[in-house]
């Protein structure tokens, strides 16, 4: 193994082993004794931490992949290229972990493929299932170029390169469907989900907040990779992403205000109860705070300021998704729910595995390597030459008229 390991990393290694061990015990209990033995779920509270965090939040945290792929490949913002590959890696790992989380959570993991053959087009969860399957496949191909590059397989890398644009567009479309359909899941529970979070606009709110957290995750993981592996930070790129994050957060806040205005729920904001505190924490720490931070140019241009804003956004996002999917249901369910240690242990084990695989991938794959200048093809297609001729022709005819 590598030699230059500071003590800190060894501590984390021990922590990682302990978390994995706890996760393993929980997994054994889950798969031998059933969901009831491992979780605090019940008929009155059927969805808990595994759905709320491992699936619904996990998919959101992977949103950096499609956001940056769209920016770099569709909108040609080539200077974002250095952060694209880590974002794709995060998204791919995120989706794989979501699938593992689903295998824990569904009662019959052996039938997990059933939606492929027995689809119900009226179910938001069917849409979710399809998007998980297809987008994970797309992400695998987007990510696979790293492996081909390391193995030196030029052929497969070239084939993927040729279909990059359709692949990326397919990924953006699938992600758009996926992020919003997670919000659609909760459209059918108007009487059950607490008033702060139930809205007909949930699909759109979920989509926009996913883009925000996608940007935040890119900043966050760039910062952490820098600290852990010393990969040079692209300060100007991250500051630009910070600016995009600011715009998206402001959009999200305006949508939230419009939503509350349309539903006329102002009076509920000051009723002293758990939901109110959680709501204010979510909005103040997760939306207002990063907006304030990012509005200050000095903060936006400083590494630590950007990092702080991204952490705020991510915390706000976690709170929002957990509120919509779990805590928002406590009041109507009539029971209290707090995840069991086994639910928490498996969740931690998944997150730890994600970080571990990310670190391994960064070490062994060209994730942070990129060509300095991505130049365009030199030889224009014949069609373009024609277009240019036409252009010069029009120019000369315009000049001709002048004379």
């Amino acid at each position, binding site marked *: 193994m590598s030699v230059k390991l500071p003590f800190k990393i060894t501590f984390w290694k021990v922590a990682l082993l302990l978390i994995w061990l706890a996760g393993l015990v929980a997994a054994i209990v889950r798969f031998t004794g059933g969901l009831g033995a491992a979780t605090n779920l019940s008929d009155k509270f059927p969805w808990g931490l595994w759905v709320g965090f491992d699936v619904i939040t996990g998919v959101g945290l992977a949103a950096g992949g499609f956001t940056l792929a769209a920016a770099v490949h569709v909108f040609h913002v080539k200077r974002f290229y250095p952060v694209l590959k880590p974002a794709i890696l995060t998204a791919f790992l995120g989706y794989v972990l979501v699938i593992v989380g689903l295998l824990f959570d*569904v009662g019959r993991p052996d039938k997990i493929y*059933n939606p492929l053959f027995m689809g*119900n087009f009226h179910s938001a969860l069917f849409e979710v299932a399809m998007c998980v399957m297809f987008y994970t496949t797309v992400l695998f191909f987007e990510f696979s170029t790293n492996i081909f590059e390391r193995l030196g397989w030029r052929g497969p890398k070239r084939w993927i390169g040729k279909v990059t644009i359709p692949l990326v567009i397919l990924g*953006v*479309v699938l992600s758009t469907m996926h992020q919003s359909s997670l919000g659609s899941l909760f459209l059918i529970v108007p009487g*059950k989900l607490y008033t702060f979070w139930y809205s007909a606009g949930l699909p759109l709110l979920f989509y926009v907040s996913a883009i925000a957290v996608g940007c935040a995750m890119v900043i966050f993981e760039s910062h952490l990779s820098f600290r852990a592996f010393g990969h040079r930070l692209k300060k100007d790129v991250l500051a630009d992403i910070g600016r995009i994050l600011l715009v998206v957060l402001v959009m999200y806040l305006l949508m939230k205000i419009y939503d509350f205005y349309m539903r006329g729920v102002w009076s509920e904001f000051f009723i002293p109860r758990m939901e109110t505190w959680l709501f204010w924490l979510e909005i103040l720490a997760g939306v207002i705070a990063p907006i304030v931070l990012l509005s200050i140019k000095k903060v936006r241009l400083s590494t630590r300021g950007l990092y702080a804003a991204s952490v705020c956004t991510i915390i706000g996002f976690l709170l929002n998704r957990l509120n919509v999917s779990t805590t928002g249901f406590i009041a109507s369910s009539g029971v209290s729910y707090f995840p069991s240690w086994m639910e928490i242990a498996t969740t931690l084990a998944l997150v730890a595995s994600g970080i571990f695989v990310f670190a391994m991938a960064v070490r062994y794959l060209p994730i942070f390597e990129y060509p300095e200048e991505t130049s365009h093809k030199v030889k224009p297609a014949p069609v*373009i030459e024609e277009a240019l001729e036409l252009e010069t022709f029009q120019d000369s005819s315009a000049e001709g008229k002048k004379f």
Partner: protein
Amino acid sequence: MVKTKGLLIDTTKCIGCQLCALACKEANGLPGEEEEELSATAYTVVKEKDDIYYRRLCMHCNDPTCRSVCPVGAFEKTPEGPVIYHAHKCIGCRYCLQACPFGVPTYEWHKRAPKVRKCTMCYERQKQGKIPACAEACPTGATIFGDRDELIREARKRIKENPDLYVDHIYGEKEAGGTSVLILSSVPLETLGFPGNLPDRPLPELTWAALKNVPSIAIFGGAFLYGIWWIIDRRMELAEYKNKQRESKSKEDVDKLVDQ
């Protein structure tokens, strides 16, 4: 055309004898004694509040929420009225438990191959020409079985004949688009813990309002993105080509000068 069947439950006639709950257990082969709450071993329970006895069971919605949310279509609304469940399709996502406005479906939490459990309005018995076990067992006529239309007529008649006894409302006639199980009571059912804020429209319409847009968003969104990519890509190619031309031209000029 099969006539939709249903159950009419008149809480003013219920004496809380639990015979329906026990008959249900026997008919469905469920273990155990009387239970307090619906569970994987109790498809119906008789509850009491302020001397009013009332039953909890699947309402058999006309447009069932469980059927609409199930990603694999494990629920079926039969033409006869009962909402039934096909266990071989179920992946155990429990979205039906989460979404059901009446909180009816239950789960076998402690099994390794768990199923969702709920009342089937004795669909199997109905197919054999029998009536649901609970209606058969009821000694007071508090639960009766029949055509839904007939039952609504009967319920109206009872309210009309005894306006002081009943709340002037047939619970289930319109709730969430209507249900096959109808309930009459001397108090509003909200006070007994039934959801009172349900719209008259079926809940699945709320999801469909968003989901119906998905194909067009996917197709037009994809086409739109491709268009944007194409336009920007072409512009960049043109710009680069022009640059190249300019460069080569200036190079030619330099070459000429050098030649001279």
